[in-house]
């Protein structure tokens, strides 16, 4: 049981994941346990064997498949962008001088409207005679009657 726990610690130690105080316990145990020393040695042997493994060559067919699909997708996205651009240039766009003229006309109309609305002689509000709220009679009855 103790060796099981120690070997778990050894496995963590080779992964550089064992805390310092646990390392001390592990080394103390290793000094007295041949089985655990052997486990540490085999774990390191395994690591060395893995490091010597040849890396499989990536097949060209994978490169071709991935890049072909990606380029195709890129082209379809590019095609969509191109369609939007064409729609703008053929249907929605207007020549720059025309757009400027329309904008100028809109500004002129807006300014004129505002200035006309502010002139008192153009828009007059009829004045009602003042009424005496107590007598229901005009506040200044016509003199001389």
């Amino acid at each position, binding site marked *: 049981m103790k060796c099981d726990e120690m*070997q*778990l610690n050894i*496995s*963590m130690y080779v*992964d550089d*994941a064992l805390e310092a105080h646990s390392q001390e316990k592990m080394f103390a145990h290793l000094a007295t346990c041949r089985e655990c020393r052997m*486990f540490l040695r*085999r*774990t390191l*042997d*395994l*690591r060395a*064997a*893995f*490091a*010597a*493994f040849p*890396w*499989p060559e*990536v*097949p060209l*067919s*994978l*490169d071709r*498949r*991935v*890049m072909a*699909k*990606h*380029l195709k*997708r*890129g082209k379809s*996205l590019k095609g969509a962008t191109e369609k939007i651009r064409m729609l703008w240039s053929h249907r929605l766009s207007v020549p720059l001088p025309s757009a400027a003229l329309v904008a100028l006309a809109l500004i002129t109309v807006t300014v004129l409207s505002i200035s006309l609305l502010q002139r008192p002689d153009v828009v007059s509000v009829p004045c009602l005679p003042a009424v005496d709220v107590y007598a229901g009679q005009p506040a200044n009855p016509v003199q001389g009657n």
Partner: protein
Amino acid sequence: MRGQLFSSLSILDVDPHTRAHSGTTVQTTSDKELLSLIQSGDRGAFTELYKRYRRALYAFCARLLGDTQAAEDAVHETFMKLSTESSSIAQPAALKSWLFTVARNEALMTIRGRRDGARGDAESVWDDETPQSLAEKADVGRFVQGALSRLKVEYREVILLREFEGLSYAEIASVTGDSASSVKSRLFKARRALAGKLEGVWNEERDDK
């Protein structure tokens, strides 16, 4: 500007992985930056990311599956998912884990398809169905390779991600969807099983010397 730079890359360029661990490669642009460029439609960034991880992912899948064609399919599907689902990646900084997670899931689907639901002894770390036989392996390296290929997939994958990719326990847990303590335990069991299986071979080798 960067888009133009990446667009000039060719898939026939020299592989950037010059050492065994993919993490040791000098990377001028981070995965996060590349992912951001991919999301903005930069095809060159996709190519760069493909070059960065193709070798590690292919080796992982080939060793997990013991079948180069199936490994090719798994890596292909992984990059197709990157191409179509890049905007849904929750943690751009953990792109490496995301790629290995997708590749692992693709590989596991292949393995499940092969087995068609058959289950072995749950307590054993060894797989009854082997990509490769241990029988007539002469040298230690090939013997280790054979023993690795006979491990059950849940043990084999943690060894591959730790020993070949240098992923931390937390990163492996993120890829496999387990807890870090479960990863730690499986690594230990896999190592002990391999060490025990290979004891005779190592002893023979030592006696020969």
